[in-house]
């Protein structure tokens, strides 16, 4: 199942590469051809994100059988998740300046990409390294790219539409969520009698901080 999810991620990554290549070619096309390219692009992103949803739901179903303690498929994103997150961020940055003839198509594409970004930022936020704030240099680089590139307000301003949710906010909220859960855990340890499970988690986090 992990191999299948990785294959789907590879396909989507190839799709993002295709979008990058199309951007330069699109300039030399006729207006009717540009509209076709925009439409196909929107379809590919739409189908790709749907495909991804099916796979992530299948992973959850399998995890239900295996039990969340052992062989948890939802946590098996691994290293490819970080790389894929970079690809998504780059695609978002690129498509923000994509001159869609029809702004509605542009909005649909961006919405789908933000959903994917939100999914993977959530997956990475549950990663142990991420929770204790021990970011690697690779993570730091995509954080910077995200902070610089995720300027959805400029995109909306260009298209003359209302602002939607900011992916930067999503990312920050997931990070705050992780820290809040750790803080809650520590607070419950200070004020209430803690269970054996919580005790283990707090000790593990403290050990990592040292």
């Amino acid at each position, binding site marked *: 199942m992990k191999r*299948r999810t990785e294959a789907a991620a590879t*396909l989507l990554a*190839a799709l993002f590469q295709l979008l990058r290549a199309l951007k330069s*070619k699109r300039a030399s*096309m006729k207006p009717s051809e540009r509209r076709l390219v925009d439409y196909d692009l929107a379809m590919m992103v739409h189908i790709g994100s749907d495909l991804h949803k099916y796979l992530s739901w299948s992973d959850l179903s399998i995890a239900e059988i295996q039990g969340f303690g052992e062989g948890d498929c939802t946590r098996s994103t691994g290293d490819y998740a970080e790389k894929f997150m970079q690809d998504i961020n780059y695609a978002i940055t690129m498509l923000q300046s994509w001159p869609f003839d029809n702004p509605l198509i542009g909005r649909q594409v961006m919405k789908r990409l933000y959903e994917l970004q939100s999914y993977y930022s959530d997956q990475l936020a549950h990663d142990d390294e991420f929770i204790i704030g021990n970011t690697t240099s690779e993570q730091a680089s995509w954080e910077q790219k995200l902070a610089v590139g995720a300027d959805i307000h400029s995109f909306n301003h260009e298209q003359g539409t209302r602002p939607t949710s900011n992916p930067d906010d999503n990312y920050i909220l997931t990070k705050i969520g992780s820290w809040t859960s750790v803080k809650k855990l520590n607070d419950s340890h200070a004020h209430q009698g803690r269970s054996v499970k919580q005790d283990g988690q707090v000790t593990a986090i403290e050990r990592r901080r040292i």
Partner: protein
Amino acid sequence: MKIPSMASLSTKTDTLEKQFESIALEEKTLSNLMQFEADKMLAFIGRKRDFPSNPSSAEIIQFNQSCVQVMESFLNAESVLFKKLTKAVHLTLHEKNIQSASLNDEDNNEAELLENDDQGFDF
């Protein structure tokens, strides 16, 4: 409610195992196809994303449409597999519940037999 015998349960479990195997095989094949499609896209656009085969605009649009069709096929196949998997997962969990219920029932019966066994030791 009648609890099925252990013999029929093992048959159901075997069937479910085979069902999971077939789903896994299909998923494996689909993942290979996805990988090939990704390779095809990358070969078409080239390492430097400069379209090494110098395709015309019409050819690029045709390629895009073929990609959309292939991805739609993947989506349909995954949709069917997802439905199969969901059913199989529900059945597996149901079987597990029945098995644990029947095992508990057997334990209770044994306990009752031991309690009612007044001919146990004859001193």
